[in-house]
């Protein structure tokens, strides 16, 4: 709860920077604030104490605190990585406050206990992102990205609201626990529009995580947005949306899983196939990573599909989102530096192994982690997902996931091959800011460390 208050306060403070002229101080202040929020989060975790004032609306229990921790840590790295892009902009203050407001929404999504807070969280997170996606005002692609995201996002919000209304009509409550209680009380006597409501909410949430067949906006938005914003979308936003899905479907609708699990299973299968095969034929790096994020979304949805109310489920999703976020921050940070001249094809990576060996090495680790090759965090992330799935009746999905991952290896390796085995057109070394270099090294080490001692995060939930 304190973390949420600190981050939203930080957003307001960022707006003040323009008026009171401490623009130069803003970046260290934001970093300090996020660190402070992280520490407050950590202390709440250890004390087992949660502010119970709004307990019916929002509750920072251990699950919420763990996902908030992932989000805040990612945001910390993201700010260091993105500062270079924002530094010289006249609108740096607006950018920072919008990102912090989006972060507020993301934290809300990890902890909501009520449909109203769910909806508000999604809107608070999405509206700044619509603007940020369109923030390169003179770039047609960026405008298109923002516009597409806004229109599609509003449409999904409409579905979410319609779904909430139907669920409310059937259960008479917005509260997750009360909905759960009502389901177990009524059993199969729930009216059929209740199930229609669940599916509509599912559609809206699947849209937010860009699972197929609701993924059409993702490649265009990821490609058109400024690279650092794309990094934010594929890390912080993804983690928050998955925390929300897990909370919603495990707490509220866990009792009627037979009504939505088949839908979810087909969505996962579609996402795996469409994402991996589409990614393999792309030439634009950001577009490829957009499709790769769809396939990662499918993996994370598998955890929800397993629908086990156990610590292993929480651990698996937490570990996956952490591994994916850290790997993505590293990958997008490097893509940002490499594609500064505007060329976003795979060719821009040609000869990076010679032009900047350190960056190339970091990129290799990030790509291996995203592909799920052993000794990196990504491998164990996939492994934990598979272990939660193995006991369920969806073994065909597991086989499909393994097969499509093999396709995934192909397009991740395309980058590595370009870096080491292709001739660069220029021998000119790629420069990188010191702060970004530090983030790259830290995230790379973190990815390797997570892979070396997976138990450190994977056994967080023991209570």
């Amino acid at each position, binding site marked *: 709860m304190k973390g949420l208050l600190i981050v939203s306060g930080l957003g307001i403070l960022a707006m003040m920077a323009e008026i009171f002229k401490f623009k130069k101080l803003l970046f260290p202040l934001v970093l300090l604030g996020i660190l402070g929020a992280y520490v407050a989060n950590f202390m709440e975790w250890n004390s087992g104490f949660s502010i119970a004032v709004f307990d019916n*609306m929002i509750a920072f229990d251990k699950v919420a605190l763990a996902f908030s921790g992932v989000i805040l840590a990612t945001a910390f790295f993201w700010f260091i990585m993105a500062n270079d892009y924002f530094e010289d902009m006249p609108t740096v203050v*607006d950018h920072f406050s*919008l990102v912090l*407001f989006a972060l507020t929404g993301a934290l809300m999504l990890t902890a909501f206990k009520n449909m109203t*807070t769910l909806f508000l969280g999604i*809107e*608070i997170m999405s509206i700044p992102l619509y603007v940020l996606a369109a923030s390169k005002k003179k770039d047609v692609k960026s405008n298109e990205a923002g516009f597409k995201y806004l229109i599609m996002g509003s449409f999904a919000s409409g579905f979410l609201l319609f779904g909430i209304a139907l669920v409310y009509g059937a259960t008479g409550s917005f509260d997750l626990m009360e909905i759960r209680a009502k389901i177990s009380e009524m059993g199969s006597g729930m009216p*059929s529009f209740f199930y*229609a409501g669940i599916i509509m909410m599912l559609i809206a949430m699947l849209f937010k995580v860009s699972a197929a067949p609701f993924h059409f906006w993702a490649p265009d938005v990821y490609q058109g947005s400024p690279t650092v914003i794309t990094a934010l979308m594929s890390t912080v936003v993804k983690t928050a949306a998955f925390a929300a899905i897990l909370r919603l479907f495990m707490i509220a609708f866990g009792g009627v899983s037979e009504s939505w699990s088949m839908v979810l299973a087909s969505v996962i299968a579609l996402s795996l196939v469409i994402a991996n095969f589409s990614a393999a034929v792309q030439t634009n790096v950001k577009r490829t990573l957009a499709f790769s994020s769809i396939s990662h979304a499918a993996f994370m949805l598998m955890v929800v599909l397993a629908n086990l109310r156990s610590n292993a489920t929480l651990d698996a999703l937490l570990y996956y989102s952490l591994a994916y976020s850290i790997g993505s921050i590293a990958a997008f940070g490097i893509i940002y530096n490499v594609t500064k001249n505007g060329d976003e094809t795979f060719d821009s990576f040609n000869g990076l192994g010679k032009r900047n060996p350190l960056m190339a090495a970091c990129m290799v680790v990030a790509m291996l982690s995203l592909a799920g090759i052993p000794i990196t965090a990504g491998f164990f992330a996939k492994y934990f997902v598979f272990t939660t799935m193995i006991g369920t009746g969806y073994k065909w999905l597991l086989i499909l996931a393994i097969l499509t991952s093999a396709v995934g290896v192909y397009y991740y390796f395309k980058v590595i091959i370009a870096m080491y085995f292709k001739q660069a057109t220029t021998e000119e070394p790629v420069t990188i800011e010191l702060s970004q270099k530090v983030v790259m090294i830290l995230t790379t080490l973190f990815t390797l460390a997570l892979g070396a001692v997976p138990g450190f995060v994977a056994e967080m939930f023991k209570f």
Partner: protein
Amino acid sequence: MLGYTITQWLFGILSFLAIMFGLMVVFSRNPVNSVLYLVMTFFCIAGHYLLLNAQFLAIVHIVVYAGAIMVLFLFVIMLMNLNEDTEPQRTWLSKIIAAVAGGLMLFVMVGSLKGAGDMGLQQYGNAQIGFVKNLGAVLFKDFLFPFEIASVLLLAAMVGAIMIGKKEAGES
């Protein structure tokens, strides 16, 4: 009257009008007409709120939606000078796909609501909730957190609008 109470008559008439005007919004070729039909739809929905004993909501609905937001709509349409000629022509394929998708949605909704009539009406919570006094009490007690956090949403929207509209250095 024909076995129905006056409330049921009002409900039927308002629903018919709301659906009819809703269809007119979609079917009219001129964007300005669409907006005006939308205003009528909103008035019908406000009537429904009145029937549900939610007076405050009805008034807010008329003031905010039919008043403020519709004026914004009209402004945008006039500034962009939209009329029948500028409306893009859709291909037959996209029309058919839209009709099928919308029809399926309607099918699901009708199907799932079909049995709901037998459920009997249930009254959740306080019947007098529509009055400003009761609404305020709920808003500032049970829903205090969403009420406060909504300010962040509005603030974010404002900052975003200003950022998009701000003139950057070198822009004329």
